[in-house]
Structure formats: C-alpha cells, structure tokens
C-alpha cells in the first residue's frame, strides 16, 4: 500500500470538510470581525439532525439516496435557523459593544449549543446508520471510498457555487461592500443587518452539509464533535488569511493534508528504533518489539494547532491575507 498517496486522499477528504467549515468562520469574520466560536456546534447540529432523520427512515423501504437527501434537506434549514438565531439573539445586540463582548458571547453560545444538543441527543456516541454500501476503489496502491469521492466532489461544487455568489451576484457584492464599509454600504441602500444575517445563514447552511459529511465519513456523531472540528476549521481559516474566501478553501485543504500526512508519518518519524545511536533501554525495547514509537497517530489533532501557532507567529495575516489585524 502506498501510504503517501493514501494520506493525500484522506487529507483531501478532511481538507474538503475543513474548507467548508472554515468558509463559515471567514465569511462572518470578514463582515463583522467576529470569530463565531459557536460555528463548530452548528456543524454538530447538522450532523445530529441528519443522523436523526436518516436513522428514522432507515429500513422504511425508502431508497437510500432519498434518505440521505432527506437528512441533508433537514439539516440545512435547521442549521440555518440556528445560525440566524445566534446572530439575532446573541450577536446583533452586541454590534456596537467592545469587541471582546461578542467574542466571549460566542464561546458562551458554543457551550449552550453543546448542552442543548446533549439534552436532545444524549451524551452517547451515536452511530451514523450505514444505509449505503460504501464502495472502495483502488488507485495506484491507495484506496478511496465512495463517501470520500462524494465529499471531495460535493465540497468543490459548493465552493464553486459560493464563489459565484460572492463575486458575481448583487447579494455577494453587497456582502463585500458591507464587509468593507458598512456605513457607506447603508448609504447605497443596503440593509446591512439583513446582509449580515444572510451571511450567518449561508455559513450555517455550509456547516450543515459539512456536518453530514463528517458524520458519514467517521460513521459517528457526538454532541462535542463540533468543538475540535470547529477549532481546526478556524485554524484553517487563519492559515488561509481570515476574512479571505479563497484563503479559507486553501487553508482547509492544506490543513487536511498536513494533518493526514502528519498522522501517517508521525509514528515512523518518532520511532526511536530508527535512531543511529540508542541508549541501552531503547535498544532492548527495539530488540523485543521491533519499534518504540514516541507519538502515535493519535497525536493527529496536534498538527492543526501547531499550524495555527506557527501561522500566528510567522505570518499572522495568513497565506492570502492582506493586512495584519491588531484587533482583539
């Protein structure tokens, strides 16, 4: 098996999901300079809602494709409602407050949503029903599953559509105008509150789809799943340059690749048996087991945050970002 190619495939799949989630962070940040820390929870609610619908319909004789579609079609409006609710109830009243207030509120909303989800969906791990056979294809010594192909292709389509909306439509132009100067945007007759609400709604719709993607990729959902996923997608947005749409896409894929390759090779790289000189204790263990690995692939999560720290230290504006924000 070709580990490198395999990890590239896995990385692209993860990266596609990160990119879709990162877009939600970056669009909201771009328009009101708020890091919506509750965005990861919206992803989780998307996964949970879809799971509920899919589990409910599984075995009912409805064709599997229709079931999955129904799951997505339920998750999207639910998440949009949650995203709109967050903006309306939690963030809009703080529009003119010091920047720290909405940020702390966002963290609070993340906790609130987690606990509401726990009450609705219990504190157990829920299995995503396997209603589809998941075909596996082999390319050049690596395997790619039908779910992976679907995630990658669908995310590319979504990104293309979003780019078209933001850069080609009247609404998208109004979003960019509002992001740049809301006061003047109002003079143009743009109802900025409405545009901001729509930005949240679009981001939440993307989060819903991402939630269904991760749910079906890992086959499992849990009320805390949005937290780390959200932080990683946020890291991806920062990596690409927060506020920048293309940056979020690039950052998402790069982060997915770094993470997958890191997870694929960290065991080898930290295998002390590869050291040219080994202390007796290590040599003894190597002789016995053949390996002595310092960090296993369970350290996978570390990479996203190493990337985040690295970006913040060396290129805080991100890969495609233009200016260094000195704001809180």
């Amino acid at each position, binding site marked *: 098996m070709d580990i490198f190619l395999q990890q590239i495939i896995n990385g692209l799949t993860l990266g596609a999901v990160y990119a879709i989630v990162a877009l939600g962070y970056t669009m909201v940040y771009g328009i009101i300079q708020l890091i919506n820390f509750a965005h990861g929870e919206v992803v989780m609610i998307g996964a949970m809602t879809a799971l509920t619908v899919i589990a409910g319909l599984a075995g009912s004789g409805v064709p599997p494709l229709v079931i999955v579609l129904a799951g997505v079609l339920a998750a999207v409006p639910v998440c949009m409602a949650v995203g709109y609710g967050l903006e309306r109830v939690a963030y809009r009243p703080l529009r003119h407050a010091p920047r720290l207030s909405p940020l702390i509120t966002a963290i609070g909303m993340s906790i609130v949503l987690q606990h509401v989800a726990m009450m609705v969906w219990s504190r157990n791990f829920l299995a995503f029903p396997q209603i589809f056979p998941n075909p596996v294809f082999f390319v050049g010594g690596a395997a790619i599953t039908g779910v992976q192909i679907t995630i990658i292709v669908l995310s590319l389509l979504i990104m293309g559509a979003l780019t078209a909306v933001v850069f080609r439509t*009247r609404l998208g*132009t*109004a979003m*960019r*105008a509002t992001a*740049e*100067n809301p*006061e*003047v*945007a*109002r*003079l*143009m*007759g*743009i*109802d*900025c509150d409405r545009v901001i609400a729509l930005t949240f709604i679009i981001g939440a719709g993307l989060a819903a789809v991402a939630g269904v993607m991760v749910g079906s990729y890992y086959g499992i959902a849990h009320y805390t799943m949005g937290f780390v996923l959200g932080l990683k997608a946020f890291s991806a947005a920062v990596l690409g340059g927060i506020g920048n749409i293309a940056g979020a896409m690039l950052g998402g894929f790069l982060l997915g690749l770094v993470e997958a390759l890191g997870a694929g090779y960290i065991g080898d790289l930290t295998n002390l048996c590869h050291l040219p000189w080994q202390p007796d204790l290590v040599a003894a263990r190597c002789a016995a087991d053949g390996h002595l690995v310092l960090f296993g692939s369970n350290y996978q999560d570390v990479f996203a945050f190493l990337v985040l720290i690295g970006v913040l230290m060396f290129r805080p504006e991100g890969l495609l970002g233009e200016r260094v924000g000195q704001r809180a």
Partner: protein
Amino acid sequence: MSMLQVQGLKVAYGGIQAVKGIDFEVAAGEVVCLIGANGAGKSTTLKALARMVPAQGSVRYDGHDILHLPPHALVGRGLALVPEGRGVFGRLTVAENLRMGAYTRRDTPEIARDLESVFELLPRLRERQRQTAGTLSGGEQQMLAIGRALMGRPRLLLLDEPSMGLAPIMVQKVFEVIRSVSQQGMTILLVEQNARLALAIASRGYVMESGTITLTDAAATLLDDPRVREAYLGGE
C-alpha cells in the same frame, strides 16, 4: 415648497453638541452651499440628513419627515450622500461600486442607460471599470463616488467636501462635473471648506460656525460680504 426643509436640527456626540439647532432649506433645482471652518459641524449636518448619526429636530424632505427612517431607506427616496473622504469600496471594482449605487433599483435596462451616462460624464471611469477602486487616484475616486451616487437616480445630492485632498487641477475638474450635474437639473447641497469655489457654483449659501448658522444670503452677496471675505476667502 422647498424640497428639503430643516428646522431646529441638533446633533450631539456624547455630551458635545456639534450642531446646535439649525434651520435651512433647499429648493428643487437649487445648488446651495454650506461653508465653514474645520469642526463647524458641516459634515455632522449632512450625516444627520443621511441618518448616519442620531439627530433631533425636523427634517422634511419632499414634505415627509425623514428623521425616523433607517439610513438604507433614503437612497430609494432619491436622497444620496457622497461622504467626506469619498468612501469608495476600495476592494470592489469601479463597475461594482457603480452597481452598488443602483443597489435598490430593479429597473435593469434603465440602470444600464444610467451607467452609460455616468461613463459619458466621467470617461475615466469607463477606462478603469474593471480595476479595483482602491487603485484609483484621489480625484478618480471622488469622480467614482459622485458617479456611484448618481446611479441611485437621486433628486437631492448631498456632497461633503468633494475638493478635499485634491490637487487644484483635479478640484477644477470635480467642480466642472458638479456644475454639469446641476445644469441637468439636480438639486445639490454642497459642503465645502473651499468657500470661493462653493460660492461660485451655488446660488445661495449658509455660513456655519461652531454648530450654528451665522449668516445666509445669495452666493454673490456672500462673496462680497466683508465677514466672509475676512474669515473664509483669505481677507482679500
């Protein structure tokens, strides 16, 4: 009846009264200027009319009180402000900026026609329509800001210091544009520190000093007024 009738307009920033109860009016087809020194409250007055700052008093536009309207509702009623410092969207292209000027309009064929006439009036913008507005020179940005306001088909145009920060030759060009817009029948309220230019283009003027209007007359009379000459025209 006047197109714009302002009575007892007051604006405060925190505890500081920037506009202290002023009255003025603008009749349809007129060019009226509001001149005064730095910090007199000219921009604040225009911002109050455009609902960008909370204000008290009465502002009647076309006979309706507009002080309760949200700012984004004004352009649809034909009131457009070209803000101080131009306020173009630097990351949007020139064409996108112009299209944002027509944001509230739905009459697509008419918008295309207006875009054509804006390009005729401001040919530089046609050449640069695909360029981001941030790459334009200051004078070109001012032209864009005016063109963008015209795309909303305003009936009353509020201009805040269109000459600010521009080289004299560019100031001349901008004022030629303003003159030709007014000759097409536009009603204009012009705020300027450059009193000579403003009074040359306007039919009437108001002089503002620390939040109050201290003097008003026909522009030609103000140009000859010793107090105006002393304070705003370099005392010649």
